[in-house]
């Protein structure tokens, strides 16, 4: 009750100079906005990566064509990885237990009058095991489908829903249009729903034999990646596997000593490490911004509170004459400082939230996630700043001599 009345009192005195109050809290507003936005982005990215990586074993290696440069300009990627490379890796590298060639492309899919865009993944019968992603109905493509280049397709959960709704899809004929024109495929399976995996919506995918994708849909001579699994996730084994792959592919691609690779090998673990490092750097930058702007914000608040104490010296004298204890005066100004700061923080949260939303709409890479925890922490930080920076002005107010204060002009 007492506290509540002080709150009302401080709202009133802030309302007397609304613009001044806002300017004084600008530091806090910006600081909190930056923190909230950055945390929403970080949180969103983490969520994306986490769902991707935990379902993909950390003994995975990605072999991709190297980026082709002319001078400093990137002009594309090499057409260096061949289907046969995947077989060779599996056969020759004893630190590797699986190697799946993949091509990934966009395609237009049609079932009678229904159309949809999907990503067409050319893969092998090993896909399910490596990605821990199973068929929900029907069956997956098998080894002979891959060998013969069969026109069979396994639909992602969303693709199935968009084309067939609730009706059965198995055995139906769909048309996929790739770079080489439209081709008919028989639906042999539907995958279970899985959502986003590392920035790819696997439910919007259609999986076809890699050979079919290369020869009949897109006319490709090279694969876009080879996904390999090391025999163990040990760092030593992963390094050994990388070394074996490099040696083998350089030999197969006839690259002379001293020339750069026309491919790159990245371990899943390194992605995770890189992301963790990025996350840490981002975190440090984030907290530095937060720290600096809260210090600046704190100075702003201390300044406005010192002005308020001077302006209201007489009021303080009157309050003391009416029986206010020193602690009452101190409390009044402390609460005022934290109220300004808290309100600044609240504005900052709104701004940060808006900023995160804007970034989400502009980049469309991931969803930003503003957690209640982040909001509570930002507000807590703002209020804490208010209390700390209000401390000195409030103390000054409470130490005033009542007689001097009453005489103050």
């Amino acid at each position, binding site marked *: 009750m007492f506290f509540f009345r002080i709150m009302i*009192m401080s709202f009133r*005195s802030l309302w007397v100079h609304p613009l001044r109050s806002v300017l004084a809290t600008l530091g806090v507003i910006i600081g909190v906005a930056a923190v909230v936005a950055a945390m929403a982005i970080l949180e969103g990215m983490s969520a994306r990566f986490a769902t991707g990586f935990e379902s993909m074993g950390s003994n995975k290696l990605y072999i991709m064509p190297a980026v082709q440069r002319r001078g400093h300009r990137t002009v594309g990627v090499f057409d260096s990885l061949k289907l046969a490379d995947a077989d060779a890796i599996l056969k020759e590298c004893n630190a590797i237990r699986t190697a799946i060639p993949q091509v990934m492309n966009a395609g237009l899919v049609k079932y009678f009058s229904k159309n949809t865009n999907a990503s067409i993944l050319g893969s092998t019968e090993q896909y399910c095991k490596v990605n821990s992603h199973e068929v929900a109905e029907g069956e997956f493509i098998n080894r002979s489908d891959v060998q013969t280049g069969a026109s069979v397709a396994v639909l992602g959960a969303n693709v199935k829903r968009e084309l067939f709704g609730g009706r059965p899809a198995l055995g139906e004929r769909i048309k996929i249009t790739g770079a080489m024109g439209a081709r008919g495929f028989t639906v042999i399976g539907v995958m279970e729903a899985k959502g986003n995996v590392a920035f790819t919506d696997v439910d919007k995918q259609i999986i076809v034999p890699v050979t079919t994708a290369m020869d009949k849909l897109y006319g490709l001579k090279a694969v876009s990646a080879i996904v390999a699994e090391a025999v163990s996730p040990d760092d030593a084994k992963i390094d050994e596997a990388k070394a074996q792959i490099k040696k083998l592919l350089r030999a197969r691609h006839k690259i002379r000593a001293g020339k750069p690779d026309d491919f790159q090998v990245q371990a899943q673990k390194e992605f995770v490490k890189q992301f963790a490092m990025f996350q840490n750097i981002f975190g440090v930058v984030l907290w530095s911004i937060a720290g600096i702007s809260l210090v600046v914000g704190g100075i702003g608040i201390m300044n406005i509170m010192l002005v308020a104490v001077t302006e209201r010296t007489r009021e303080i004298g009157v309050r*003391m004459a*009416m*029986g*206010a*204890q020193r602690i009452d005066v101190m409390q009044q100004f402390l609460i005022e400082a934290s109220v300004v700061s808290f309100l600044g923080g609240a504005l900052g949260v709104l701004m940060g939230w808006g900023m995160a939303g804007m970034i989400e709409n502009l980049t469309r890479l991931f969803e930003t996630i503003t957690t209640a925890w982040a909001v509570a922490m930002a507000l807590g930080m703002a209020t804490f700043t208010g209390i700390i920076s209000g401390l000195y002005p409030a103390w000054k107010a409470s130490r005033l001599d*009542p007689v001097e204060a009453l005489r103050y002009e």
Partner: protein
Amino acid sequence: MAALIHLENLTKHYQMGETMVRALDGVELQIQPGEFVAITGASGSGKSTMMHLLGCLDRPTTGAYWLDGELVSAMTDRQLAVIRNRKIGFVFQTFNLIQRTSALDNVSIPLFYARVTRVAELARRALDRVGLGPRASHAPSELSGGECQRVAIARAIVNEPKIILADEPTGNLDTRTGKQIMDIFHELHQSGVTIIVVTHEMSVALQAERIIRMRDGKIVEDRPVDRAEKTRGEEATEPATPDREPSPPMARRAKV
């Protein structure tokens, strides 16, 4: 100790560089409960200093002050604040209302620090007592000087103090409004409150029961006001000339 206020050899000194100002210089004084006292004297004679000490806003340099049987000159800041809150009501020349808050909120301040509940009800009752109930929601800037001073009086009486201390309460008001204010003091006096008014207007001082005149931090005269004198004081419309030595004729005549 029966006296409400008992001062014993009270001094208040201010060190101003080399010189020492004796704002109060050995004051002896007793005031009984229910008295109506006027303190007069030339500018700089120590009236306000006396008021601040009586009001427990300040501590004496030496000497003792008993208020209602308690030795307040030895109290801590915290205890003094409680005394000011419970036993004393202040009325100032410049009203000292908090701007931009309503009359009701201003009157609520002492209740607020007394941690009482029913704040609004008690504050409204105090405003009613000074005839400003209908103006409760008005801010000081929307009130006349006389009304502001009435709000200030309501604020002074809201905690039902034993003593009202008023330093030049009519100093910023015209004669007629000043009289209204003095009338309210009379009413409060009738209801048993002890009233101490600092003034250098003789017409105001004569409305009290007792006049204390100060000079150079000392009490130089302390006498009751007789009825005939009082009537003259009430009739006087012009403020008396500032009190200087030698005393103005009216005061000298009264001595005889």
